[in-house]
Structures are given as structure tokens and as C-alpha cells.
């Protein structure tokens, strides 16, 4: 029986008079691949931002299981969320542009290694040891996800699809238990999307982590997701397996449109 990893209970977010997310509850289990879909403006990114600690919820609780205990996520900031096993990518790719791919990944490995002040400023053997260990980790990731050719390129010089891939690998480098992917396939053509689908599956299978993704590309969602939550106007409209959701009349009406069998 899979364990609960991320629990979301009655989460609401208000901006002044506008309620962006209304009483949403979700549970993500270990190693699951879950998708969050819904029309634009449904509150998906706002929900994501709350789940990853960037935005505090107006009410409700969000908790992540880390080292056996549950830790509060809401209102604790993104750094705390990251330190408790949450990582993410962004709708508008946010790489460290001036830095190379290798440096981007090394930066994400920051918290997993220690280095004291004197080793840093005088480059003692301790410094070299830490650098070597970090480099080994980074190289593993670079090789496994086929980034070897671009490892020394500045991140902002890469083509879009490659940048997306780097962003995902960087998120992976923080050794999370769950990764949030915010519209990873945005702006991609069918070949790139197919590659991305393969990568996400590889990611999940090889690293024992859960993936929660927001996506509009239904082919990707239906082929990857084990469960789907449908958000509309800030509320959970439906949830279930891809088959169940694609046949749900309310979902079809609000979002999928047309034939109930079209996406099934």
C-alpha cells in the first residue's frame, strides 16, 4: 500500500476579493504520476505555487512527508519546501541564465554537501574533495539525461526544448520526493513532446519520486498520468483515472469539449 506523500486539505487562496483557489483537497502518494488539468485561469498555477511553498494559503493545510514525519508547507517559503523534498519547474523556464548547464545542476546540489568557510576561501583539500563529489553527482545526472553535449553551454543560449530538459534535471538534482512540473510541454512540437514524455517517465521510474504536472497537452497527460485532478474556477471538478476523467460529463463540458470518447 503506497504511502501518502503530500496532503492538501481544504486549501483556499484569496487575492483581495478574488478567490483563485477554493477549498481544494488532494492526496499524492509515493511514486505516483498525477496530472492537474483544467481551463486557463482555473487556479492551477496558484495551487502549484502554494504546494511548492512560494505562496501561502489563505486557509487550509498542505503537508509533505519527509524522513517519516509530516511537515507544514504553506507559509514556510520555497526554500523550506525544497529542503523537505519538494522541487519544481516553472511555466516560464527559470534557469540560471548566465551559468552553464553544469553550474545550474551543481547549484541545485548545494544543500547536499557541506563546505566550511576556510575551505571555500583558501581552496584547501576539503574544497577539492567536495567539488569532486558534487561533480560526480552532477555528471551522473548529465549523462543519464543526455545533457553531456551541452554541459558547458550557458543556459540561456540553449534551444527551448533543451532548456526545459535542463530545468527538469536541475529540479531532480535537489533529490526530491516529488517534482512539480508546470506546463513542461508548452511550446513544444510533437517530437519534442514525445521525448519529454519519455523523459518524465524515466525520471519517475528511476528515482522513486512522485510527479505532479500541470499540462494542457492531452496526449501527454493521457499517456503519462496515473491519476488526474481537474480544476475549474478554483475548485476540484473531478478526479480519477484518465479513463474516468475523460468520460466525466462535467469535465468534458468544462474542458475537454466535444466527444466524451475523443481523449479516452
Amino acid at each position: 500500500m503506497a504511502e501518502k506523500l503530500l496532503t492538501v486539505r481544504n486549501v483556499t487562496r484569496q487575492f483581495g476579493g478574488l478567490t483563485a483557489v477554493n477549498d481544494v483537497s488532494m492526496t499524492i502518494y509515493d511514486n505516483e504520476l498525477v496530472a492537474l488539468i483544467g481551463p486557463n485561469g482555473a487556479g492551477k498555477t496558484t495551487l502549484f505555487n502554494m504546494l511548492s511553498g512560494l505562496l501561502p494559503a489563505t486557509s487550509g493545510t498542505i503537508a509533505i512527508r519527509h524522513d517519516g514525519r509530516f511537515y507544514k508547507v504553506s507559509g514556510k517559503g520555497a526554500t523550506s519546501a525544497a529542503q523537505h523534498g519538494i522541487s519544481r519547474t516553472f511555466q516560464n523556464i527559470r534557469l540560471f541564465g548566465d551559468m552553464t548547464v553544469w553550474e545550474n545542476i551543481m547549484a541545485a546540489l548545494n544543500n547536499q554537501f557541506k563546505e566550511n568557510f576556510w575551505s571555500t576561501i583558501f581552496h584547501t583539500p576539503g574544497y577539492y574533495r567536495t567539488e569532486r563529489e558534487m561533480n560526480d553527482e552532477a555528471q551522473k545526472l548529465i549523462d543519464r539525461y543526455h545533457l553531456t553535449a551541452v554541459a558547458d553551454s550557458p543556459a540561456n543560449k540553449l534551444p527551448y526544448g533543451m532548456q526545459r530538459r535542463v530545468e527538469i534535471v536541475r529540479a531532480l538534482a535537489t533529490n526530491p520526493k516529488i517534482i512539480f512540473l508546470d506546463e513542461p510541454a508548452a511550446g513544444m512540437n510533437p517530437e519534442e513532446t514525445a521525448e519529454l514524455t519519455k523523459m518524465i517517465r524515466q525520471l519517475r521510474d528511476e528515482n522513486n519520486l512522485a510527479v505532479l504536472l500541470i499540462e494542457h497537452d492531452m496526449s501527454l497527460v493521457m499517456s503519462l498520468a496515473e491519476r488526474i485532478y481537474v480544476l475549474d474556477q478554483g475548485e476540484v471538478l473531478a478526479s480519477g483515472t484518465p479513463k474516468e476523467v475523460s468520460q466525466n460529463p462535467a469535465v468534458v463540458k468544462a474542458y475537454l469539449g466535444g466527444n466524451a470518447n475523443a481523449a479516452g
Partner: protein
Amino acid sequence: MKTRWQTIAIWFVCMAAGYGIIYAGEMTGVVDTFIENMLVMMGINIILAVSLNLIVGFSGQFSLGHAGFMAIGAYATGIMTQTESTFAGLIFSMITGIVITIVIALIVGVPTLRLKGDYLAIATMGAAEIIRLIANNLKITNGPAGLYNIPQLATWPLVYIMMCLTIIIVANFVHSKTGRAIRAVRNDELAATAMGINATKYKLMAFVMGASLAAVGGSLYASYLQSIAPSNFNIMESVSILIIVVLGGIGSITGSVIAAVVLGAIDTILQNFGSLRMVIYAVMLIVIMIAKPSGLMGRREFSIGKWLAKRTAKKQAAAES
């Protein structure tokens, strides 16, 4: 492995050579007091510029308050070496200056580092002015008249060694896990925090480190020039250091070194032009900024390690063909 030792060896040789050249100059009289003065000021400016570059270039914090930290070091040395006029006294005063600077940099940094861009600039400028105005009004600092007849305990070798140390420390700091975290925060603070990097901690680290080195520069300034006054540490002084950093290239240590030397030389040459000097300097500044806003080196760095690696790679390619 081999490259590591080669790199260190080459750096050591370069620094020793620089030392040797100046030493020879001193011995033969080519380097007279005037030239020595210019060289020492260049050295101090390198310390100030490189440390500011750490804050502005690598950490992306637009600080216009560097002169304030310089003042702390200068006054610490100025005051303490008057009672303890030995070399040990100088070192002790420098350490005191650094400790006070760390405390003040934390006090200034914690609230202001969450401001962005221009707002951070004026906040740091305000903080430095407050420091200067305090110095202007305290008895122990002798108010607006400042301190004079400070014993000259700083010699050109000391300044040279401190300059080399500063470059080494800052370069090492930047090329480390901490340096990467700092640069990540500069590139995209939001993404960095999402990757678990504590932005405030790293911004503060860079700020405090840079401030401490500025204090060292200030201590050397006081001990070599022998007289200091609050007017030496005003906004214009912070701006002058910033100009060196920008002209050399924000984010390039090499650039800061080159710019400090070039500007120091130009400043000396322009001494003969009297009041026209600042006008020429101003026009030069405007023209250079419009022509190359990213500065001499941009973000590029001259790295012996990389140069050696390229050479080795070329040799290997040649051997294999």
C-alpha cells in the same frame, strides 16, 4: 590534478614577478615616492573594486555604500595605531575594523538586502552617509577635521600582499559551491529558493565578505596616506569604486584589476590638467559607457586554469592526429 598544481604555480610566479618588478623599481629609484604612491593607491583600489564586484557583480546587489565600510576600517586603524604604533598594532587594528564592519554590514544588510535595484542602491548610500556623518560628529574621530599623523605602518609590500590575498580570496569564493549559490540567487532568486538555496543567507554572505575586504582597504588607506577625514568616504568615493567595477566589467575580477590600474594611471596623468581633469574624466566616462556598457571584460574572466586546460586539450588533439 596536475592542472591544479600547475595553475597554483603559475599564479604564484605571476604574483612574485609583480612583486619583483616593483621591488627592482624601488631599488633602482625608477619607482620614486610619487610612483609608489600611485601604485599603492592602485593596489588599494584593486582591493576595494574586487570586493565591491563580489557584491555588485557576483551577488547582483547594487550597493552604493562601499565607502562606509572603508571608513570603518580606516578609522579603526587611524585611532588604534596612534596608541599602538607597531606593525602588530596595525594588524590588530585591521582585525578590529573587520569585526566592526561585519557587525555593521549585518545590521545594514539584513533589512536592506530584500530591496531591489535602485532602492537598494539608495538605501546602502544612505547607510554609508550615516556612517560618515557619525564620523563627522564624534570626538574620537576628531570630527570634520579627521585624523592626521597616523603612523605609516603600511608599506607597499604589505599593500601588494593584501591585494594578492584579496584577489585570491574573492576568486576562490566565487569558484566554489558558495559562489555558485550566490550567482544562482543573482540570476533568478525565485528559482534559487525553489532549489533550496537560502537567498538571504547567501546575499548576506557576499555583502559581509565584500564589506570586510573594503574595511581592509580602508585600514591600508589610513596607514599609508597617514591622514583621513570624513570627506574621503563620501558618496563620490563609493561612486568612484563603482566606476572601476563597471568600467572593468561587472562580474569580472580580471576586469576590476585592469580597470583599477588603467584608471589609476589616467588619474595620475590627468593631474597635470588642473580643474579640466574632472571634465575630461567625465566625458571619458560617458563615452565609454555609451560605447561599451558592459565594461572592458564584460563577464569574462582570464583564468589560468582554463587556459592550461585548453592547452592540454590542444596538445592531446595534436598527439592523437
